[in-house]
């Protein structure tokens, strides 16, 4: 019976995956920065905050900014999907409109999280945002864990994973872009690693603590780390190929190309090409997402009922 997915549901599922991943990544980044700032008494709060804004693509304005303002705008703002609360709210609405497609457990996870945010937000004013950020991260993990354990590996599941993968590439690229393109606001390498949740994995692979540009290599090219760009691209490509393979798939082609480029890139070349590569990665993800929309959920269907008559 349920061998097909409504276009509307496919779109909602993709965005649910994207928004939960975005909330998760944003919580990680904020947590890493806050942690860094507390431990480093010489750090300039304004600079660090501007760097955060730059990563998340929000205009910082001309006045000096502090951490509370950052939290208000990047965590607690329910009207912006760039902020955690807005992203989770949007994920909840999308999951709600696809309630017969996501499992009850997944929907309840998002809904309960949404209701729990208010308490944690209030607590954050008194004791700091750690509980709040921790809640977001653990619920995002729970959500994707439930997706993995309660959804069939059918197209519905692939749309969720596709959304998550594309968002993951985007967030990783954003992190690296600030380091590479905007030296004034650059985060240090260890902060960058922990913002990606990659500090321990990196330490295990390289036996060090990431004071080198090899961090970029790890975050882009590591085959095994699930948040690396290569890994996320590979996953997205797998989803797209399983969703059906037209001969020239405009959704798969841009990310497939980049995936192969990353696969055969060696370390010296990486450093040289990094700025260009990051731009290409972002463009490829965007092109792919647009092609997915066009193919799987076209809005402008032909208006056929006008001739139908009564």
């Amino acid at each position, binding site marked *: 019976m349920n061998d097909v997915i*409504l*276009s509307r549901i*496919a779109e909602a599922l993709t965005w649910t995956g994207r928004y939960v991943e975005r909330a998760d990544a944003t919580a990680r980044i904020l947590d890493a920065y806050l942690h860094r700032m507390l431990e480093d008494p010489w750090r300039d709060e304004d600079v660090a905050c501007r760097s955060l804004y730059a990563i998340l693509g929000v205009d910082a304005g001309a006045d000096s900014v502090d951490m509370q303002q950052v939290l208000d705008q990047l965590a607690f703002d329910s009207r912006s999907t760039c902020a955690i609360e807005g992203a989770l709210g949007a994920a909840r609405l999308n999951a709600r409109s696809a309630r017969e497609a996501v499992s009850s457990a997944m*929907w309840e996870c998002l809904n309960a999280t949404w*209701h729990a945010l208010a308490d944690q937000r209030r607590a954050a004013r008194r004791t700091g945002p750690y509980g709040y950020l921790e809640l977001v991260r653990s619920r995002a993990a729970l959500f994707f864990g439930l997706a993995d354990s309660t959804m069939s590996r059918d197209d519905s599941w692939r749309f969720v994973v596709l959304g998550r993968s594309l968002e993951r590439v985007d967030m990783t690229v954003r992190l690296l872009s600030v380091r590479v393109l905007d030296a004034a606001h650059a985060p240090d390498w260890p902060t960058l690693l922990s913002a990606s949740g990659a500090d321990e994995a990196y330490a295990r692979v390289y036996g060090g603590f990431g004071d080198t540009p090899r961090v970029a290599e790890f975050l882009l090219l590591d085959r095994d780390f699930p948040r690396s760009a290569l890994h996320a691209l590979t996953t997205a490509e797998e989803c797209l190929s399983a969703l059906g393979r037209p001969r020239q798939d405009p959704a798969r082609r841009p990310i497939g190309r980049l995936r192969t480029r990353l696969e055969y890139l060696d370390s010296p070349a990486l450093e040289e090409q990094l700025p260009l590569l990051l731009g290409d990665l972002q463009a490829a993800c965007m092109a792919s997402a647009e092609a997915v929309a066009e193919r799987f959920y076209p809005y402008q269907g032909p208006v056929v009922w006008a001739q139908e008559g009564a």
Partner: protein
Amino acid sequence: MADIFDAYALVDAWDEMFERPGEVRTAYEPVLAALQPIEPGELRFRADQMARAFTDRGVTYAFAGEERPWPLDLVPRILDALEWDFIQRGVAQRVRALEAYLADAYGPCRAFEDGVVPWRLLLGSPHFHRAAHGVEPPGGVRIHVAGIDLVRDEAGDFRVLEDNVRVPSGVSYVIENRRAMTRVFPSLFDGQHVVPVDGYPARLLAALRAAAPEGTADPRVVVLTPGPSNAAYFEHALLARLMGVQLVEGHDLVCRNHRVWMRTTKGEVPVHVVYRRLDDDFLDPLHFRPDSVIGCPGIMTAALAGKVTLANAVGNGIADDKLLYTYVPDLIRYYLGEEPVLPNVESYRPDEPGQLDAVLDQLDRLVIKPVDGAGGQGIVIGPKADAKTLAKTRKAVAADPRGFIAQRPVALSTSPTLAGDRMAPRHIDLRPFAVNDGTDIWVLPGGLTRVALQEGNLIVNSSQGGGSKDTWVLAEGPADGPAALPADDAPPAVAPRQLGPDGVPSAVQEGAQQQ
């Protein structure tokens, strides 16, 4: 020790739990025994826990623009096997008669020719859709799902209050109420034989598939919802999920060549049965309200061409008009040749010659209902109304006798309900749900019991702040122990899970798993 039933004072109505003060009815004995020793604080704790669970699961409803957890009282409402058998027969009989009436009204019109029902009742109904005339639905079913509202009067007799055969809602709360109660209050079920309610989605799906246009090998069923902003969206999503079918909105569907398709990631796919949860008026802008954007243009044409089945059928509104309600006992005799199992509430038809004056004369002793009102709106309870309201009502009824019916006020039965930290009697009603698959009318055991949470209030709708109760139907059989025990020498139903090295079950493993 404080007893939550200490202050329970019976009012002038049939009480579901107590025959007389302190004298509990048999079916309720175990429940009372389980509830009585519980401290008020503990009950409150469980009620809060339940509300929290409802909020997290999204089982909510909109009240005064606010999202509130579904209100479920902790005390179940119990129907014994005999009572249920009676209700179920009465409900099924009523649905059969209403089906016969719809087939007649949209076909040969015998009942009108024979003078059982006046013509004006049909022709004056805003729900009479010419588009539905002459359509022969698959299996002859127009009422795939019905919700028949019952009340229990002062003498303890069940009476029909109204019939809902358009898009009756609330069945999801029957399922959710039971699930919540078994989680929050498992001990209450100990030693009881409560008939399960989770068979509904399977019955519904079977009935919907049976309703597919003839010759459809593997019918595709969908649930059509107005969307997430609708108050009953939770129910639409639950039913779609439990049936494993798509939940579609109007713009997910497209009609072409008198057929209905849905837009999917694999292109357009044909749809055969639409369990629609929106009113006729919004279904198809080409036939009904042209300004409606939540329906699907052309779906009515496809239905008329017999390419898609709409459940429930378009035009059913003529059968749950409150004025028609007063004729249903006659219809049961006329079409089925049977006596009604369930009586109506005594009613007047101001529409009929001579009755208008009788109604106007004793307005302050009657309940006045607009024939088209929904959700308890517009009902005036004469004995409780002030002079101004009565005057206004008198004028309205005199101006439009067809628009109202009048009924004897019934003191609905009461059931103990948690109010603050004590039990208090509150008025309740019951909406059993029937599913018609064309050969059999099945009534979901129990139904939705709604409770008026304010003292003395007789209107139970959730849109007016009402609550609900888990409704138990007790299975027939011995009061204690399972109905049938397997014989001693019967093989175990389930093979042991873990065998030790010598081929015998490993006690350690099994024991560890049972912790």
